[in-house]
């Protein structure tokens, strides 16, 4: 076009060179820092990672014994927690964001207005405030002793307790049947035509398959229901109030950004596409699902990927209300060892890895979503 493009290899080589240089520069900086710190009588190096952690973890995703397990394992627990909350927020915010975004385009003026109001109100206020408010909200739930279980679900300010299946062959069997039914249905539908999840028939069949073992066994499955006992609530699975509050706040916050992206993307689908669907007398559901959304998602995806990376970074704010993700645990380790630079470097490294990985994934999805329009 304007300048003659240099070969791909040239720019790739240049990029590699630059990254190598930056890498070297960073190493040099760390080396100097280390030397400086040592000269001031401060211990440096990453040896602390292997030492046993002194701290107890509040919401470790696996059994963690302080005093035995290493600092590295503690940080790993934090990393898993970060990924866990990020994943939860990403999924939930996508759903809520889609709802708000579609609401913004509704014909119902009240719905449209309410969605706009929500979006503007939420996204123009720092997320920290949402977190604090949402935590206050969760804390105002009844205490465990006052809470009444509804269908085995206990909603308290100590957490949300759900009945959980007791390990038993029936559950396993039921799960297997469901999975097989799912796979079979997907396979069949793929062969038959466009694959559309969420079809009512499919769901029903899957549920039926899952119920099969219980019908055969002839009894209701065993569940462990939560019950208050002393200081503890025993049985069931729980979601801590901190996790709940944080996920609620960040989901709400993120969803407003996603909503605007989604709305813009839908509006960017050319008018001609809508007109073509009208001319073909397509029913509304088909119009949206088969024509509009697939084109909108391609426009929206890069911007959404940005928001998702933002979620991963924002997850570090959970430390405010005491949910222990990598920054929170990093702080604790830092208290114990005093090695600020190293701990921060580990945290930064983690975020770089995750973000770049996520970007890569999104690019992959993006290329898979594109269709043959680039000649």
């Amino acid at each position, binding site marked *: 076009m304007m300048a003659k493009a240099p070969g791909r290899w040239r720019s790739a080589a240049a990029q590699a060179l630059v990254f190598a240089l930056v890498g070297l520069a960073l190493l040099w900086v760390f080396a100097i820092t280390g030397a400086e710190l040592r000269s001031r009588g*401060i211990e440096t190096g990453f040896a602390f990672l292997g030492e046993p952690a002194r701290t107890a973890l509040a919401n470790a995703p696996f059994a963690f014994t302080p005093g035995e397990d290493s600092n590295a394992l503690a940080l790993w627990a934090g990393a898993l927690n970060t990924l866990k909350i990020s994943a939860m927020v990403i999924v939930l915010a996508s759903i809520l964001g889609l709802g708000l975004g579609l609401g913004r385009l509704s014909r119902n003026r009240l719905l449209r207005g309410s969605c706009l109001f929500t979006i503007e109100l939420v996204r123009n206020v720092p997320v920290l405030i949402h977190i604090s408010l949402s*935590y206050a909200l969760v804390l105002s739930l009844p205490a465990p002793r006052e809470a009444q279980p509804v269908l085995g679900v206990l909603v308290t300010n100590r957490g949300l307790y759900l009945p959980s299946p007791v390990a038993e062959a029936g559950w396993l069997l039921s799960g297997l049947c469901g999975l097989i039914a799912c796979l079979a249905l997907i396979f069949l539908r793929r062969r038959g035509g466009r694959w559309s999840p969420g079809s009512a028939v499919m769901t029903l069949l899957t549920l039926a398959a899952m119920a099969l073992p219980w019908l055969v066994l002839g009894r209701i499955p065993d569940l462990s229901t939560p019950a208050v006992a002393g200081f503890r609530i025993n049985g069931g699975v729980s979601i801590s109030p901190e996790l709940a509050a944080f996920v609620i706040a960040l989901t709400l916050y993120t969803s407003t950004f996603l909503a605007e992206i989604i709305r813009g993307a839908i509006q960017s689908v050319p008018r001609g596409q809508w007109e073509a669907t009208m001319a073909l007398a397509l029913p509304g559901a088909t119009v949206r699902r088969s024509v509009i959304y697939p084109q909108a998602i391609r426009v929206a995806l890069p911007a959404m990927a940005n928001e998702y990376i933002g979620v991963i970074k924002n997850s570090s704010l959970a430390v405010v209300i005491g949910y222990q993700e990598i920054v929170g645990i990093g702080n604790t380790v830092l208290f114990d060892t*005093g090695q600020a630079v190293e701990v921060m470097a580990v945290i930064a490294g983690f975020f770089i890895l995750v973000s770049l990985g996520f970007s890569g994934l999104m690019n992959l999805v993006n290329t898979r979503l594109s269709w043959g329009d680039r000649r």
Partner: protein
Amino acid sequence: QQASPTLDAVRARGEVACGVIGSSFGFSLPDSQGVMQGMDADSCRAVAAAVLGDANAVRWVPLVPAQRLTALQTGEIDVLYAQLTWTMSRETDSGVQMASTNYFDGTGFLVPTSLGVASATELDGANVCSIQGPGEVTARDYFTSQGMSFTPVLFAEGEELRAAFLAGRCDVYMIDQSALISFRASLGDNAANYTVLPEIISAEPLSGAVRKGDPLWFDIVRYAHIAQVNAENLGITAENVDSFGAESSPAIRRFLGMDGTLGQALGLQSSWAHDIVAQVGNYGEMWQRHFGRTGADRGANRLARDGGLQYPYPMR
């Protein structure tokens, strides 16, 4: 006269750079007018009064706990008064040195009275709310040694922590005595609904720290504190400090710089101790100013002669 790079830098700058937490009541917290208030803040002021003759010549450097030691190590601040517990590892590994303890604290428990718990030994399985930091370690040591299990709930911010405890998120609020007391005081009529358990499970000598390798500066910071304790011991207060004259006892005369070379030994003006007391007050005044209104008991922070731990090391 030995050289002190820190002292020279402070003089050249005309300010003492003082690291504080900046967010904890009673130690360092800006009041409604944005003025830093608290024991730690006043200890810094004492240093500034001694060195520069002006208690207000302090530059506040608020630090989150994680940054405290590095800020000192890297030379960003001259002195650290940030509720730092004097521990061996800190002195041996971190290139800092503890100069003086301006507050003897300890970790305690607060529980709702309705829980019917009278001793910390009954807390097996409890949810324990506390602030992120060394407190966690203390708690684990305590609960393990008692053969009890517990669930920590850790917060980065006090407001969220207090709200959580009041809402019943936890059974126990575990925090330094000092904070416990001011928290209870903030509850007004509600205070009766909460009980402080008798156990104090750790000793937390909160101390001022300086970088290693500058002995003169170390001395200055240390004796700025000792001077305040001595002033209380000698009965010298901010009001009466100028009323002492030739008829006063030799100890007082030496303290106020009328006799002897106490100031010279530190490389300071002879009026250094006078300036501290005149501008900041003696230790007792300082304590009263920040904790008096909470109705707390001075406890371990009483003078040695009253059974406390603040010892007036002789200044001669």
